[in-house]
C-alpha cells in the first residue's frame, strides 16, 4: 500500500488553526493578544512643552503579546527652518523616526532582521506612521509648528507597525496634541481560509498575506491600510478588513482604559490636598 499522501503545499508541521479551532498560542482566530499600555512615563510634565533638555512632551509604552514599542513625542514646537512642509498642507508637520533595537523573539531571529532607523524598512514604517497621523491631527493653530515622533521597537514578535501606531496614538494624546479621533491599528494574517487577528512572528511563518489596518474607532474610517503579499480576491480582502476593524475596536478599549487610568493617576497627583 502506498504511503499516506499529503496534499501538496505546506505539508507537515502544525496547522495555523487546529481541529479545535485554536491557534498555536491558544487564541481563537479573531482574538488579539493581551495589550499592556503605560502612558506618560518619563514625560517632563503632563501638559508641558517638551524639548531635548526636558524630555518628551508625551510618551507611551505598548506591549502587544511580546511585541514591545516605545513612542515619544516632542512638540509641537517651532518648525525648524530646514524642514519643508508639503505644499498646501494646513496642519502641523509630523516628523517620525522609527528604529528597531529589537530583541527578535519567536520569529526568524536572524542577523539581518534587526534594523535601525537608516534602513529602508524603517523609513517605510516611519512614512506610514506619519501618513496615518497627519490626517487626524487637528491642524488649527499648529501651521507653523512641527511634532516629532520617535518610535522604538524594543521587542518584536509580529505586528510591529500596528503596535507602533497604537503607541504613537497614546503618546500624542499624552502630549496633548488635538486629535480628531484615536487611531487604533491591528494586523490580520490570512492563512488558508483563516483570518488571524494580531499575528505573531511564528504565525507569519505560514507565509500568508498580512494586512495592517489603522482606523478611527468612532467613525470606522481607515487611515492606513498596508498589505504584504497578495490576496486572492475582493471577498478575502473584505473579510480580512472586517476582522481587522473588530481587532481595532478591541485595541481601542485597551487604549481607552489606559488613558482613563492615566488621567485618574494625574488627577490624584494634582488634586488639591484637602485639609
Amino acid at each position: 500500500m502506498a504511503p499516506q499522501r499529503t496534499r501538496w503545499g505546506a505539508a507537515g508541521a502544525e496547522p495555523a488553526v487546529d481541529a479545535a479551532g485554536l491557534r498555536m498560542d491558544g487564541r481563537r482566530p479573531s482574538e488579539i493578544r493581551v495589550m499592556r499600555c503605560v502612558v506618560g512615563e518619563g514625560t517632563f510634565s503632563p501638559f508641558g512643552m517638551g524639548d531635548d533638555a526636558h524630555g518628551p512632551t508625551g510618551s507611551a509604552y505598548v506591549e502587544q503579546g511580546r511585541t514591545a514599542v516605545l513612542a515619544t513625542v516632542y512638540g509641537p514646537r517651532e518648525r525648524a527652518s530646514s524642514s519643508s512642509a508639503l505644499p498646501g498642507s494646513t496642519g502641523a508637520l509630523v516628523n517620525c523616526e522609527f528604529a528597531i533595537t529589537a530583541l527578535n523573539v519567536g520569529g526568524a531571529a536572524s542577523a539581518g532582521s534587526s534594523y535601525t532607523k537608516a534602513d529602508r524598512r524603517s523609513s517605510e514604517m516611519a512614512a506610514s506612521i506619519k501618513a496615518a497621523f497627519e490626517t487626524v491631527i487637528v491642524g488649527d493653530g499648529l501651521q507653523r509648528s512641527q511634532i516629532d515622533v520617535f518610535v522604538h521597537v524594543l521587542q518584536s514578535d509580529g505586528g510591529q507597525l500596528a503596535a507602533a501606531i497604537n503607541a504613537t496614538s497614546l503618546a500624542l494624546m499624552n502630549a496633548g496634541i488635538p486629535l480628531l479621533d484615536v487611531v487604533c491599528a491591528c494586523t490580520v494574517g490570512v492563512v488558508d481560509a483563516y483570518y488571524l487577528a494580531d499575528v505573531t512572528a511564528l504565525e507569519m511563518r505560514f507565509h500568508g498575506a498580512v494586512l495592517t489596518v489603522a482606523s478611527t474607532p468612532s467613525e470606522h474610517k481607515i487611515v492606513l491600510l498596508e498589505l504584504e503579499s497578495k490576496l486572492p480576491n475582493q471577498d478575502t480582502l473584505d473579510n480580512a478588513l472586517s476582522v481587522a476593524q473588530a481587532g481595532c475596536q478591541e485595541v481601542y478599549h485597551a487604549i481607552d482604559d489606559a488613558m482613563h487610568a492615566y488621567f485618574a493617576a494625574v488627577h490624584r497627583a494634582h488634586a488639591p490636598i484637602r485639609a
Partner: protein
Amino acid sequence: MEWRQMYLRDDLPCHASACDACATLPEYGAALGRISASVAVCFVPDALVLLYQMDLLESDVSPLMDELLLLQSVLSAHGPVGRADGLVWFRRSKTKAQAVERKRKQFALFSNEHHVHTYLDRLPHESDIEYDRRRLTETVKFLRTHWQPFGLIPIILTNSVAFEREAPVKYGGDVTVMSIRTLVDKYSKRYSRLVELCALGNAEDDEALEEEGGELDDEELLSKKRRTLFAEHISELAALEGLQSGRYVEGTFRSSPYNLLEASVSVALHKKSNPDDRTTIMLIGKSSHNRAFDGDRVVIELLDRSEWKTVSDRIVEQEAAQDKESDDGDTNGISHDQVRKDATPSGRVVRVSQRKWQSCSGSLQQSSHSGGGNALFVPADRKIPLVRVLSARIRNLFEKRLIVAVDSWSRFSANPSGHVVQEIGSSGDKNAETEVILIESSVPHRKFSKAALDCLPDGEKWAVSEEHIHKRWDLKSKPIASVDPPECTDIDDALHCVSLPDGEGYEVGIHIADVTAFVQHGSALDMEAAERGTTVYLVDRRFEMLPAMLTSNFCSLVGGVERLAFSVILVMDKDANVLSAEFGRSVIKSRRAMTYEQAQNMLDGIRSKRDHADELGNSLLGLASLAEKLRQRRTDAGALSLASPEVSFELEAETNDVTDVKFYQIRETNKMVEEFMLLSNIQVAEKILKHFPKCSLLRHHPKPTDEMFEPLLKTAAAYGIELDVSSNKTLNESLNRVELAFGKKDPYLSTLLRMLTTWRMSQAVYFSSGELGYSDYLHYGLAAPVCTHFTSPIRRYADVIVHRQLQACIGYSALPEVLYDSKHIKGFSNVMNELNRSAQYAPRKSVHLHTLMFFRHKAMRQQARTARMQRIAW
C-alpha cells in the same frame, strides 16, 4: 531558546454530551465528535496507541472504541510519535469517517494544552515521555472530577505494560490506566476479533528490555538474550555522531526482488567532495539486514574489505530464505580467494532511522500453523519477509486474501509480527483479487462525497444555452467527429478538418471536452478530482476521476449533441506545417462518435472509391493525410516508435468472465488521433510557456542514461545486433534497420527489441517550467522540445490545470493564485507523477489477473521467447 506565549482558556468544552457545565460553551473548529451520554467509560489513548493500534481504534469489531477522547498533548506529542504522525492520523481518521459512512466513530478532541486547569509547565530535565505522561494523567484526573456529576470515567489506554503497572504509584490512585494487552485479555472472549487487530507483537518486550532493562529479573533477561537473533539498533545520538564522523552512512534499503538474503543501499560515500558519486553497498545475509524492510531509511556501517562478500546469483524465495536463516552470510561455497576478487562493498545495518512499514496483501501459510492462534503470513510482494500473525480464528483465515499490517520486529524473533487489518475474500476469487489490486495500488475507489456531487450542474436541466453560444466560438456547423475505442463513454477529444477556400491548406480543429467549465478551481469537486488524479481503467471496471454525470454525459463529446469544448484551431499547409494556431472555448456538435474500426472502414471505403465521400469523409481523409506527414516528420526528428503490446479481453456480459484474450489491434486511425493529440499538446505547451515561462505545467521525458540501455544492448548483442543508443534518432534508425534485416525470417524480433527499449525507458513526468532549464524540457520519446498534457481533462487532472493555464493565457479568466507559483506547480507535479505511477500499476495488475484467470483451466502450446536471464539460477 525559543519561548512562546500561551493563552490558557476556561471556555474549552470537555465534549461530553452529558456535561451541563460545558453545554453553553462555544464550539469551534472542524467537525469534532462528542462523547455520547450513554457510555459509562471513555478511553483516552496515549501517543503510542495512536501510532501502533490504529486498526484497532478504527475497527468496528467491538463497541469499546466507539467513543474516544483525544488529547491535544497526545496528538502533538514529542517522543517517538512526532507531531506530524499524530496529526496526519487524526486528519486521516476524520476524512475516513466522513467518506466511508460506516459506523460513525466519535473522536472528540480536548485541547488540554490550552486549558487553564490542565496546562502543565515542563519540569527541568523532564524527558519527553515523562512530560507526555504527566500531561496525560493530569488531564485525566481533571476530567474525572469534571465528569463526576454524571459518572463518566476516563481511562487512559496505553501500549506500555510498564506504564499501566507504575501508574497507581506514580500518579495516584484516581487515574485508571489500562494497557492494550489488558484490554484485549479482558474483552477477547466477548469480541474475538480484537486479538487479530491489535498490534501486540514484541514491541512491548523491546520497550521493556531497552527502556527499563534494570527492572526485569536478570534471569528473564538472560533467557531472552539467549534467543537473540539480531544485533541491537544503536541510538539516534550514536547514529548521528557516526554519520558525522563518516563511520556510518545513511541510505534507503532496497531488497533484491530475486534473493531475499540480499539487499543494497545506494549512498554517496564522499558527500562533500562528490555528492553525485554513488556507491551501491550490498547487505548480504539476514543478520546484516538487521530487521530492515524494503524502503526503510537505514544507517549502515561499512564492513572491512576482508569481510566483503560476493553477490550470489541464486534466486532465493521466501520459503528458502526462511530455511537459510542458520547459514546466512554464507558465500555459497566459493573459495576464499574468489571472494576477495569479485567481492563488492558490503555493510550491515546498525539503525533503522525511518520505517516504511505499510500494510501488505497476501495469504497465510497453512503449513506454518502448529496449533495455537498464530501462523506465518506470506506477502504478495516478494520483497517483504514472512510476517507472524496472531488471530483467534486463524483457521478461518486460511485460503483467504488478507491485508496485514506489520507492527514490530523484535531482535529475538526471526519474523516481524503483524496483525490482520482486513479480510478481503477467498483467494482466487476475482472480486477479492481485484480488491487486493485496488488496495495495493491505493486507487481511491470510494464514492464521491456529497459536497463534491453538490458542485455538479442540475442533471435534468443543464444544456448548452444561448448564453454559452454567445460567449464562445460557435463551431456547430463544422464536420466534427470523434474517434475512440469501442464502448468508450468518456469521449474527451473530437477532430475536424476542412480545406481552406484557396485550396492551399487545411483548417484543422482539435476539440477537447471543456471540463473546467464544470469544475471550478478550489471547489470540493476539484479537490476530490485532484486527489484521485486520474481515472483508473481495470479490465472489467473503471474508477473515475470525476462523477459519471460529467464523464459520460456533460463533458463527453458524444455524437449529435451540443457540447462545450476547448478548441485548438490550426491552419496547416499541405505539408502539415502549422501556419497559425488559435485557442478558444467553443460550442461544438459532433456529427458522429466513431470507433477506430468504423473510422478505418470509412477511410478505406473512400480510398478504394467504393463509398462516396461526404463532408465527414473528406474531413477524415484530410486528417489522415496530414497525420501521415506529421508522423513522418516526427520520426525524422528522432521520435521513437515503441511497442508495448496491449491485450484486450472479451468478457461475458453477466458474469464478467473472460471468454477470450487478444492483442489490441492498432489501426491507422489510432495513429491519426494520436498524432493530432500530440500536435495540440505541443501547441498548447508552447502557448502557455510563452505566457507563463516560470510556472507552466509541462511534461518531459529525460534522455535515458547509458546504464539504462545496458541490458537492452546485451540482449541485442545476443542476436548479433548492434544498436546505436547515442540519441533517440540513431536508436530509432537502428531499430528500423533490425526490422528490415530480420523482417522476413524473424518478424517478432524487432517487436521484442522495441518492447525491451520501452521497458528500459524512464517514465515521462510532469514538471514546472520554472524549475528546469529550457534544454531539460525535452521529451525524448516524442522528440518534442516542449510538451504537456491538454487532451484528456476528463480522465487526467494535470490536463485540468493546463486548461486553466491556457484559459488565463487567452484572457477568459484570471489564473488562480497558486497556479502562478512554480513551487506549487512543482509539488503538484510530484503528486501527479506519483498518482500516475500507482494508477498504471493497477491496470497492469488487473490485466495480469485476467490473463491468469483465462489460462487457469486451459492447457495451451505457444511459442515464447526468453527476454532476460539471471546469471545462475540454482
